[in-house]
Every structure is written in C-alpha cells, then in structure tokens.
C-alpha cells in the first residue's frame, strides 16, 4: 500500500460520505453540496491513481479532472439556480419525505 493508493482510499471514503448525504438529506442545497463532495472524492481517486505512472504523473487523468471540474461547477450553478426557483414557487427548497 503506497501513497497513491492511500489517497485513493480517502477519495473513495469522501465519495461514500457524499453518496449518503445525497440520498438522506431532503434539502436540495444539501444534496448539491453532497454531489460536490462525491465529485471531489472521484477527482481525488483520479489524480491519486495518475501518480502510479512514476515520477511524472500521467497527464491524461489530470486533463479529465480539469474537464470534470468545469462540468461540476456549471452543474452546481444550474442546480442552485433551480433550487432558488423551487424555493420561490413552493416556499421551501426541500423534496417531500416519501417521493410518491
């Protein structure tokens, strides 16, 4: 177990924490934050495993993470704008307890 795998393990842990938050929190803003935490975990796994290439890290995962960051930022921004709209229309930015 060397250093890249150590970081990748923490990336998976962060991903799982985000996954629990995403499914258990009814508030939309908390769901968005959880989604970002999940994303951070995945990015950490990618960047950590890129270091397996040796002294200079594999640049392809780095480029993919850079792409992912921008997509996650734009998705979050759109999600927050949607959440604000939900709050304006229904008075609260929460999903109902049981979704039926």
């Amino acid at each position, binding site marked *: 177990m*060397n250093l890249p795998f150590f970081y*990748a393990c923490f990336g998976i842990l962060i991903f799982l924490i985000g996954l629990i938050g995403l499914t258990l929190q009814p508030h939309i803003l908390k769901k968005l934050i959880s989604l970002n935490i999940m994303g951070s975990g995945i990015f950490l796994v990618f960047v950590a495993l890129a270091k397996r290439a040796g002294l200079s*890290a*594999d*640049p*392809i995962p780095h480029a993919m993470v850079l792409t992912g960051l*921008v997509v996650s930022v734009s*998705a979050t921004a759109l999600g927050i704008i949607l959440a604000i709209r939900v709050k304006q229309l229904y008075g609260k930015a929460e999903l109902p307890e049981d979704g039926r």
Partner: protein
Amino acid sequence: MDKTNQFHSFWGITLIVLVCLFGGMLFWSLWHIPEYSEGLSAMVTKHMPDSGVKSEVTAILLNFRGYDTLLEVAVLFAALLGAYQISPMHLDKSMVQSNPIMLYLIQYLVPIIILVSGYILWLGGHAAGGAFQAGAVLAGAGVLLLIVRPDSLNLKHSVYLNFILIIGPLIFTLFAFLPILTGGTILEYPRQLVGIMILLIEAASTLSIGFTLMLLFAGGRPPSGDN
C-alpha cells in the same frame, strides 16, 4: 417515536448498509488495480512535438482529446442557457459596499486580477494553466465587482455581451470543423498553424468562460438594455 420516523430510520439503515457494500466493492477493486501503470503517458510524450504546445495537459485538452473540451465548453454554455430560461439576474444589494478602503482596493485589485488571468492563459502553453483556470480567475474579478460595485459593471442584455459569451464555443467549433474543408477530419489542426490556433481557442474560451461563470453566479439573464 411515531410511525413515519421509524419508517425513515429503517430505510436510512438499509441505505447505509447498501452504501457500505458498494464501498466494499470499490475498495476491493482498488486493491486489484496494478501498483504501477504508465497509462497512456508514453503515447502522449511520443506525440508531444506534433501538439503545438509544450504543456502535456494543454496538449491533451486542446489537441489529443479536443472533442472532450469542445463538448465541455458547450456544456458550460448550455448551463448558462438553462439559467437564462429559469430566472433573471438577482443580486443581493445589501452587500454593496460603501467602505472607502474596499472601494479604493478594488480599483487596484481588479486590473491585477485581469493581468493574472492573462498570465495564466499564456502559461497554459508550457506549464500548468490554460483557458479554464484563466477563465475562473477572470470570473473571480467579475464576481468581486458584482458584489462590491454592481453599478460599475452595468450588466445589460446586449449583442456585445452575447458575443463575448458565444465567442469561445464559436471559435472552437469553427477551428474544429475547418479541417473538413481541406479533406481532414474533425479537430485535425494543420501542422504549421496548430500553436496559434490553440492560443486563439484558449483566449476566446477564457473570455467566454469568465463571463459565463460570472453570469451563473449572478443567477441568470441580465436585465434588458432598452430602458
């Protein structure tokens, strides 16, 4: 404890068990990943002289895997279009500053941030940097102005603003499809012009990304200019 709450905690525990199983699978697969892997880095190093830039990450983003980045710029634009449809710009006026130190600082800070953004853009050619980082820094300057002095930006829905927002995706698409005319394939830049083309794409994308992120922060479409 009432019935709905019990129901909730039952599903909560089930979910945590499921997540633990899923996590176990992830750790198990991580355990089986080979300890040393070069990935595609040897291939990238081999083709670096053809890429027109000296930075490997920039070469991958704009050249080797240009298709990803083209779609990414489109995703950013689509997010802004979505925001435009949903709501008009709404800024919290209570944060507008009258603090003279802040107003004085802004005068010097914003030009410096714009310069740094340009420097990061240029840096993308040979080191870590490029359009997305530069665009994010540029958006930082815009957000600062939006919070502290929104009147100084005077954002209005206009042809110029639309042009800035579309120039990045437009130039990228144009340069991506241009090689078809000369019998090549999509994103196959001509060998002699590849450096300058990447620089142009990055510069245009920086402007578009900066303004797009700033408008996303502002929360939607700016007010119409004809009033």
